[in-house]
């Protein structure tokens, strides 16, 4: 049975020896001399600092495009909030404040990497080349998803907290089986770390040495519950208990998020297994447009975080470093306004689905009951003298 005992083991490399549970080949979390709490390459004041473990070396155009990505994302996100307030959307989950975490990590990805988002990753979707309008269908109520995850390697939004971390891990296990060198990123928030699925995903990823980067945006709140309600230990430290590296990064620093995610992806791609990245950031708006943050946090706290705004600090640095000028910033603002207009018009013109669409795709290979009910539905609505099935189902005109 010696053969079998070897064969029965997962494909992960031999477990690390005791006392060396976390691989040492990943840049360490606490840099000597840098920011004491997390990896940072750009201070809130917009001053570039160095880090011994992480660096970025981009072209001027690339530096400018990070700014453009953040501004445009913030703008169409703000449009989402406005549309929800106007009753055009059931609700909107705003990413305001988290642009650096999402654009930084999103721009670190290769085309063949695969993203498993939660429901707030509008900036990551933007980086994947998703049409922002496609994100609004869910909140408009015309679909529960709708896009083809294979088209942009961007999975459907997931509303059950943390469930997607397991899908990401399973997908990454498949990537490893295929011998491919791409990586998978699972996005989730601080609240999700309390979910069993996330713990199970960490463990599966570690046991199977799956090439998955767990990117946690610690935005400090799960609806109204502060981070203190979720954990007694810093989140990035959770990784060590599962035997893979965890790193904490300034989530409002787009350059640091880019550098750390790149390194994590490389680690995963090269067979190093999973990495947990904790991006420390702040959700500046409500959880969704249905809640009221003034009930659970102070304006002083919000002001403090406003001073750490990811876009402001990056603009300051771009201008100071001579990488951009005011004209460029004005150009981006104009482009953002145009995008917002396109979203506004697009959402309002979004057609309701055909009523019979609810019977579509319930099963890949059909189901007798669904087909029977579809036929009954059509027949019933066809019975109305002056109504097609579509209008009889009470949709279509106006809201």
């Amino acid at each position, binding site marked *: 049975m010696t053969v079998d005992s070897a064969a029965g083991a997962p494909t992960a490399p031999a477990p690390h020896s005791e006392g060396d549970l976390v691989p040492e080949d990943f840049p360490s979390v606490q840099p000597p001399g840098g920011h004491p709490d997390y990896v940072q390459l750009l201070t809130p004041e917009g001053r570039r600092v160095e880090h011994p473990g992480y660096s970025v070396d981009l072209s001027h155009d690339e530096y400018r495009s990070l700014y453009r990505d953040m501004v445009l994302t913030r703008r169409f996100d703000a449009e989402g909030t406005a549309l929800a307030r106007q009753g055009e959307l059931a609700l909107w989950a705003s990413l305001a404040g988290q642009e650096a975490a999402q654009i930084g990590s999103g721009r670190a990805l290769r085309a063949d990497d695969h993203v498993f988002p939660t429901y707030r990753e509008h900036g990551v979707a933007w980086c994947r080349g998703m049409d922002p309008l496609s994100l609004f269908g869910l909140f408009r109520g015309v679909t529960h998803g709708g896009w083809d995850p294979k088209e942009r390697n961007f999975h459907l939004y997931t509303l059950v907290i943390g469930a997607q971390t397991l899908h990401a891990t399973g997908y990454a296990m498949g990537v490893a089986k295929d011998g491919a060198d791409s990586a998978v990123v699972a996005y989730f928030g601080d609240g999700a770390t309390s979910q069993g699925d996330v713990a199970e995903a960490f463990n599966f990823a570690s*046991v199977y040495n799956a090439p998955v980067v767990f990117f946690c945006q610690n935005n400090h709140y799960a609806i109204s519950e502060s981070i203190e309600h979720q954990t007694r230990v810093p989140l990035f430290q959770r990784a060590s208990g599962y035997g893979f590296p965890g790193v904490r990064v300034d989530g409002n620093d787009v350059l640091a998020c880019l550098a750390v995610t790149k390194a994590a992806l490389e680690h995963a791609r090269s067979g190093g297994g999973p990495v947990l990245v904790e991006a420390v950031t702040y959700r500046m708006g409500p959880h969704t447009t249905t809640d009221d943050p003034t009930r659970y946090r102070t304006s002083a706290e919000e002001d403090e975080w406003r001073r750490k705004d990811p876009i402001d600090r990056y603009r300051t640095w771009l201008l100071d470093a001579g990488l951009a000028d005011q004209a460029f910033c004005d150009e981006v603002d104009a482009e953002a306004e145009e995008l917002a207009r396109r979203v506004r018009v697009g959402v309002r013109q979004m057609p309701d689905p055909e009523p019979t669409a609810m019977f579509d795709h319930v099963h890949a290979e059909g189901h007798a009951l669904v087909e029977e009910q579809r036929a009954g539905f059509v027949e019933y609505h066809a019975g109305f003298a002056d109504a097609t099935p579509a209008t009889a189902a009470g949709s279509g005109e106006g809201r």
Partner: protein
Amino acid sequence: MTVTTSSNAAEPGLASPAGPAAEGLPGAGATAPGTTAPTAPGGDGTAAHPGTATGASDAPGTVAEAPAPAVRTLTLAKTINESLRRAMREDSRVVLMGEDVGQLGGVFRVTDGLLKEFGPERVMDTPLAESGIVGTAIGLALRGYRPVVEIQFDGFTYPAFDQIVSQLAKMPSRSHGHVKLPVVLRIPFAGGIGSVEHHSESLEAYFAHTPGLKVLTPANHADAYWMLQQAIRSDDPVIFLEPKRRYWDKAELDTTAEPVPMTGARVVTTGTDCTLVAYGPMVKLCLESAAAAAEEGRSLEVVDLRSVSPLDVETVAASVRRTGRLVVVHEANTFVGLGAEIAAAVTERCFYSLEAPVLRVGGYHTPYPPARLEGQYLPNLDRVLDAVDRALAF
């Protein structure tokens, strides 16, 4: 006794009722746990039974080395093993995952020998986490694999409930059909083996209630073999409920027979006085009941649903139009169970054919009881025949 079938497949499962039927009445508890208890020694009821059933006769690896005859007498567990082996040989994307499915061969030995033939990349012993198993199976399916998951026991399925009903069932429609999830969840289900708590649950109503899932349960060897083949080939998620109390039943299996369809009910025995509808472990009981009733001059028709979702109501309704009476038999508690659905559906379709209200025989509205009481909880020959008496009294 006449046997009709809608397929050309061999019906080895039908051979068995004749035996118990002859001695059925004296041994009123023919299918009651009492008779199966000897093969289910005390303890945790997991590894013990299969060892006696499959350990000696089926040495791993022999099938792979020498061509097996097309028709063999096998246990149901071994039959499912053969089905998995065939599916894995035919499609390299098929992977098995679950707790103890590798070196141990599963607690019921259903995956015995598969690790040896296919290696750990395709037969994956997983961490002990049901949500994790189903969730990562979804991820593997998204990557193009066809995972066949073994949930060790029915009662351990609940920790994976969200992954099954909210993720597995809904992702295809949420993606407007762009995502296909060809995942099969094999679950040894239901009771009658004298086991401890959480080892005897009937889950079918939970999953049949969930749009997006197909829920199958074979009652005989040919169905188990072929329905599983179809389930693994299907692009839909399938809950495959294996009647664990039948794992050690032996019957002939012809692996060269014409495959039977994955869904659709089947009239197993024709009769004229009353229809019995069952699925999974209760089909055998109903056949025994029909045989026992025949001795009293009553002619019962038995319908095996085979597929709980989709449900072939028409075959049931056609039977009721012939017999005028219907008794639904299942292990699950009857309240909001499948029997209620069948009663409603049949009443809608053949109200004027019914000579009596549709009656149900099933579990009570209690947690599945301790093993020493399961004989009282589970449908048995007496309870089925009593329901038939009540139906005929109208």
